[in-house]
């Protein structure tokens, strides 16, 4: 009996490709609580604390990815020594060659796992042959930790930081479990200095961390998973079985789902990092409040958009600067197509990126005429203009998310066909009656999203002032509530596939 239990326990704790340690799962909560206890015990020993995080992070990654944790270790070693060699190298050409080798190897590994089958299929289609995909598993989180390691070397190249002397510290940065699977893609220049600090958690930090963890769980389980399982997936699976009303609501719901799924993950990641004394970079800032697509990209997946801005868009922009505005437009389109392709090896992601590139390029073209028009209509800086801009931007985004969700263009066209040719307003009351909870979550979700930021700050402050016992009770109630609403197994986060 005892042996059986031990083997069950070993099974639970060992690598299972379909069962990573999801934030929100009971096993994660248990292990994280144990980690916090030991972390607290080692509060006075920096070495012990760092090693504890290092090994816990490696285990966390092993649980999700098995032997691929060796690849992670290679990435840390390779980029640590690349940074060191680059820093000690003088001469523009030599440094450039070293950087090109580093980027080629990092992207080569990422490309092999992520894009080999995509390109082989493309070549096969071109030759009208049949395609047998190679059996290549994608190591979870590889897109995130590759970019995380790369920004260290890129910043050393740009002389924005000096390399760390400690391989251990750099490894903690690369392995750090809160953000290894789906970001935020933190900057080495911001993370590494924090390893020198003592862990001092202020009341405000604890309040903020708890609020982030709770809002992350609610966003993921109560909003994203509920909407997906009970409504969105049904409509997207067979849009022709539904009227335009359901199709339109499915698009609005998917906009909320993808935001809550991804930002929910980021919130929890930032929250648990904060409980360990680390401040990760912000990743979302009410993105649907954006007044333009450019503004959206300052608010959505900020850690990726700033990475692409600093290391891809800016160099391209400088390269094409003789073409003036057209140079900017070309740089935007290239950056966003690659941004789309980063999300996954499929034409749909490429089209999604291209669409965002076109949005940005066209808005650049319209910048001056728009300014003139707003001045003539006396709309500049008015609330009406802002509301109109938010409304249009939101719908441009909802349109783009279709490409993100569907497997082929035909499915996307089916959805729009239903909306434009089979829209029956009389179905709206039936829809609300049939999908009451979905409708309430949808309306409430967007309502909360559009509340001012100051309210969030006030809530965190209030939570910080609350007695620790009551904080624990509130957290327990939120977890219990999530468990009640959870209609099936916890769904993997959408961004894990990238």
């Amino acid at each position, binding site marked *: 009996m005892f042996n059986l239990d031990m083997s069950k326990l070993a099974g639970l704790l060992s690598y299972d490709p379909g069962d990573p340690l999801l934030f929100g799962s009971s096993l994660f909560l248990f292990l994280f609580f144990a980690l916090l206890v030991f972390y607290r015990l080692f509060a006075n020993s920096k070495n012990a604390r760092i090693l504890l995080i290092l090994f816990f992070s490696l285990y966390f990654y092993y649980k999700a990815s098995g032997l691929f944790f060796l690849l992670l270790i290679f990435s840390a070693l390779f980029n640590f020594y690349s940074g060191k060699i680059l820093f000690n190298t003088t001469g*523009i050409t030599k440094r450039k060659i070293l950087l090109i080798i580093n980027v080629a190897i990092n992207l080569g590994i990422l490309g092999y796992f992520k894009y080999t089958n995509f390109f082989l299929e493309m070549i096969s289609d071109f030759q009208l042959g049949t395609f047998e995909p190679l059996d290549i598993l994608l190591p979870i989180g590889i897109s995130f930790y590759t970019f995380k390691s790369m920004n260290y070397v890129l910043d050393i190249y*740009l002389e924005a930081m000096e390399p760390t002397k400690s391989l251990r510290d750099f490894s903690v940065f690369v392995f750090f479990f809160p953000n290894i699977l789906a970001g935020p893609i933190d900057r080495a220049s911001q993370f590494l200095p924090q390893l020198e600090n003592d862990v001092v958690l202020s009341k405000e930090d604890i309040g903020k961390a708890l609020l982030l963890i709770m809002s992350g769980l609610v966003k993921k389980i109560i909003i994203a998973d509920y909407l997906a399982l009970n409504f969105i997936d049904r409509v997207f699976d067979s849009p022709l079985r539904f009227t335009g009303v359901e199709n339109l609501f499915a698009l609005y719901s998917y906009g909320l789902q993808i935001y809550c799924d991804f930002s929910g993950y980021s919130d929890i990641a930032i929250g648990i990092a904060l409980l360990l004394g680390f401040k990760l970079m912000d990743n979302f800032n009410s993105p649907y409040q954006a007044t333009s697509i450019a503004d959206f990209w300052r608010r959505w997946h900020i850690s990726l958009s700033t990475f692409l*801005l600093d290391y891809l*868009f800016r160099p391209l*922009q400088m390269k094409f600067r003789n073409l*003036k505005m057209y140079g900017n437009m070309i740089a935007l389109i290239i950056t966003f197509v690659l941004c789309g392709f980063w999300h996954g090896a499929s034409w749909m992601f490429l089209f999604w990126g291209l669409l965002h590139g076109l949005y940005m390029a066209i808005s650049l073209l319209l910048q001056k005429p728009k300014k003139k028009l707003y001045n003539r209509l006396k709309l500049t800086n008015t609330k009406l203009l802002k509301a109109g801009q938010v409304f249009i931007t939101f719908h441009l985004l909802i349109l783009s998310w279709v490409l993100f969700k569907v497997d082929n263009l035909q499915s996307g066209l089916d959805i729009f066909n239903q909306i434009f040719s089979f829209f029956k307003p009389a179905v709206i009351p039936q829809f609300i009656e049939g999908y009451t909870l979905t409708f309430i979550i949808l309306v409430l979700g967007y309502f909360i999203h559009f509340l001012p930021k100051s309210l969030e700050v006030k809530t965190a402050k209030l939570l910080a002032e609350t007695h620790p016992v009551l904080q624990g009770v509130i957290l327990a109630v939120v977890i219990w509530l999530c468990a009640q609403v959870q209609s099936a197994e916890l769904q993997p986060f959408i961004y894990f596939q990238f």
Partner: protein
Amino acid sequence: MISERFKKIVCDELELNVEDVEMKDDTIASEVPGWDSLSHVNVITALEKDYNVRFKGIEILKCKNIGDLQKLVDSKLQ
């Protein structure tokens, strides 16, 4: 030290009043109204044109603040 000429070129490009804008060595581009990632390239080309110099891409990317950019211009003029 940011020169008057430098400041005027930037303000003309961004359609700002020179008197309204404060530029110190440690001012970063995003602190200047209108100087964002898209207009950045226009400011750089305006500086190149007025001073009749040519920057390398990497030189621009290394600039962390306006003081660095001014130093880069100065180094090209020497």
